[in-house]
């Protein structure tokens, strides 16, 4: 839906130059690729590329099939949450995102002329990462492509190639693809559909998203505008620039600004997206916020309608779904791409465990279980935001007007205007959560621990740095010495499969690292208190950083049973 001519849009937006990747046909024998692949990923967007990078950490090669020749044209998903930054950090690609992205912590909402809400996302100095950064999706994809290109043996991106057919059974997946004019077939153990909201794989398998579509319509426009207004989310309800409706504004790198504005439910989208209409609207809005004197130009336009919909199952035999192919979430609260990366990161370790023979296929059923739970939690918050941002019926309009008009005098009522930004999903009730001991505070099984700094042999680091492509035991022992029987059990696990790392959190001494064991120092006891740990307490972290289980006095048997349970072994 970009309004620029394709050639213009393809060359440059701001400082970003689009590179056209050539299409490559693999070696074929009679129209068939001889090499069978372990994983084929349909879709080279941020979720597909993220999954390929996540699998590469386990030494698992994948083929990414992408219909386009370039990264995406528009800014699309622009808000990356702290949890997503943690995932990017784990994938080893965080640095360019922090260097280019604009961090932010909160925002303001206005009703007519008055500021009625100044919200802040949870943040403190112990966090490694900001609660959110803004960055255009073409930069996101570019950084992921560059990371993938550094792993040519493990990630094979096939640009300008479409999936045209799929057959699957218990043993694998047979695909037909077309690279330019060349059709060919290829085989894989597993297919992961990361091919977006219009997923070909989903349609080809006859699957449908189910849920709710909302009436409210938004136009999404990017403009190039050199404004020094800080990075925060601004929302205007019933402003002079859009009487009766809503406008949102976000800053992006390269002096690009995102303006989302609501149009009447019965408005004609094609007409509303005409450049003259869009520029006319934006001129009025910039005048209202006192930025009319600055030069600006429109660089991208799209349209948006909210929906909260999901597949009932994200696994269909050897075909798995992740990101927008699996579910659609309303834009408000930024759960689209962020939940897609959560999908990919959850799936990656489970698929790796199955492919490496460490776990039974049943482990993959917990992918659907946990991520459908994630969808429900995300949808509940996103639907609340959507009902406020695009009221679906008269009652929602009326109560919103009532709340907004009271919010200045009664600030507590303004909380209904909070955008309810995405936060880390806890897999409470997951069948992977292990029975353990009662803790006072700390992090429940299924959740991700709150971050805090510790000292490691690599220098200052954070709790969020401890997980990796392995199970991680975090043992709290002030003097750095595990009890001898536990020490022996940990040594055995460090030498076995699936890969296991033991981290001892000590209060005193020096940090060190040796093989699959390291000691980190928690001089002020912050990690102890954040985890509700006693002397000898142990947290077992999954490769995606979620807590699998926690115990105060674990034994060798506790840990062996934990591994067997995580690996879906009877």
């Amino acid at each position, binding site marked *: 839906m970009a309004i620029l001519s394709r050639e213009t849009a393809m060359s440059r937006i701001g400082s970003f130059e689009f590179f056209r990747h050539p299409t490559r046909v693999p070696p074929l024998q009679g129209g068939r690729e001889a090499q069978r692949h372990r994983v084929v990923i349909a879709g080279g967007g941020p979720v597909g590329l993220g999954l390929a990078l996540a699998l590469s950490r386990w030494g698992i090669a994948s083929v990414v099939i992408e219909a386009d020749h370039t990264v995406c044209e528009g800014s699309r998903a622009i808000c990356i949450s702290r949890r997503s930054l943690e995932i990017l950090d784990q994938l080893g690609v965080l640095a360019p995102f922090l260097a280019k992205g604009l961090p932010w912590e909160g925002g303001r909402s206005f009703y007519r002329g008055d500021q009625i809400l100044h919200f802040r996302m949870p943040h403190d100095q112990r966090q490694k990462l900001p609660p959110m950064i803004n960055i255009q999706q073409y930069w996101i994809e570019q950084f992921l492509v560059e990371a993938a290109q550094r792993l040519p043996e493990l990630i094979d991106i096939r640009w300008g190639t479409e999936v045209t057919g799929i057959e699957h059974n218990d043993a694998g997946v047979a695909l037909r693809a077309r690279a330019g004019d060349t059709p060919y077939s290829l085989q894989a153990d597993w297919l992961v559909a990361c091919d977006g909201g219009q997923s070909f794989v989903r349609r080809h398998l006859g699957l449908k998203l189910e849920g709710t579509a909302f009436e409210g319509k938004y136009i999404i426009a990017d403009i190039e505008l050199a404004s020094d207004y800080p990075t925060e989310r601004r929302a205007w309800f019933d402003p002079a620039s859009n009487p009766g409706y809503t406008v949102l504004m976000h800053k992006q790198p390269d002096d690009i600004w995102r303006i989302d504005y609501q149009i009447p439910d019965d408005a004609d989208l094609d007409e509303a997206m005409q450049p003259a209409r869009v520029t006319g609207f934006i001129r009025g809005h910039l005048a209202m916020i006192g930025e009319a004197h600055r030069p600006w130009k429109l660089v991208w336009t799209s349209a948006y309608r909210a929906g909260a919909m999901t597949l009932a199952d994200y696994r269909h035999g050897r075909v798995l779904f992740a990101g927008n192919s699996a579910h659609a979430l309303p834009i408000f609260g930024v759960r689209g791409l962020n939940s897609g990366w959560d999908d990919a990161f959850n799936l990656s370790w489970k698929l790796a465990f199955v492919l490496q023979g460490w776990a039974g296929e049943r482990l993959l059923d917990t992918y659907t279980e946990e991520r459908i739970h994630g969808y429900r939690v995300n949808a509940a918050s996103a639907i609340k935001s959507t009902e406020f941002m695009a009221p679906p019926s008269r009652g929602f309009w*009326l*109560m919103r007007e009532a709340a907004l008009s009271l919010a200045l005098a009664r600030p507590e009522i303004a909380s209904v205007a909070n955008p309810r930004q995405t936060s880390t999903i806890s897999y409470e009730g997951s069948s992977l959560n292990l029975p353990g001991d009662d803790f006072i505070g700390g992090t429940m099984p299924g959740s991700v621990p709150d971050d805090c700094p510790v000292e490691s042999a690599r220098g200052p680091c954070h709790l969020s740095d401890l997980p990796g492509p392995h199970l991680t035991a975090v043992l709290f022992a002030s003097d750095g010495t595990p009890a001898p029987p536990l020490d022996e059990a940990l040594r055995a696990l460090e030498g076995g499969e699936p890969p296991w790392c033991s981290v001892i959190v000590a209060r005193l001494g020096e940090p060190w690292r040796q093989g699959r064991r390291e000691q980190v120092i928690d001089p002020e006891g912050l990690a102890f208190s954040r985890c509700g740990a006693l002397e000898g307490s142990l947290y077992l972290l999954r490769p995606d950083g979620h807590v699998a289980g926690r115990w105060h006095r674990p034994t060798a048997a506790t840990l062996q049973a934990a591994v067997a349970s995580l690996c879906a072994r009877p």
Partner: protein
Amino acid sequence: MPRLDELQRDEAYRACCLAISAAGPQRETLYLARLVLLLMEEVGDLPRCLAAVEAAARDLPTPGPAA
């Protein structure tokens, strides 16, 4: 929880009547929605708020010609 006696109820009832009339036909609905929000904050108890929301909807008649 404090309760209204008959005289107090009369006074609250009458104050609502006057305020709705003062709001006028164009703004009376918004006025009532604001009143609901403020009263819910005063009640400060979700089950009681939801019970009132439901009770007001129960057997909701179509207003007569004079209303």
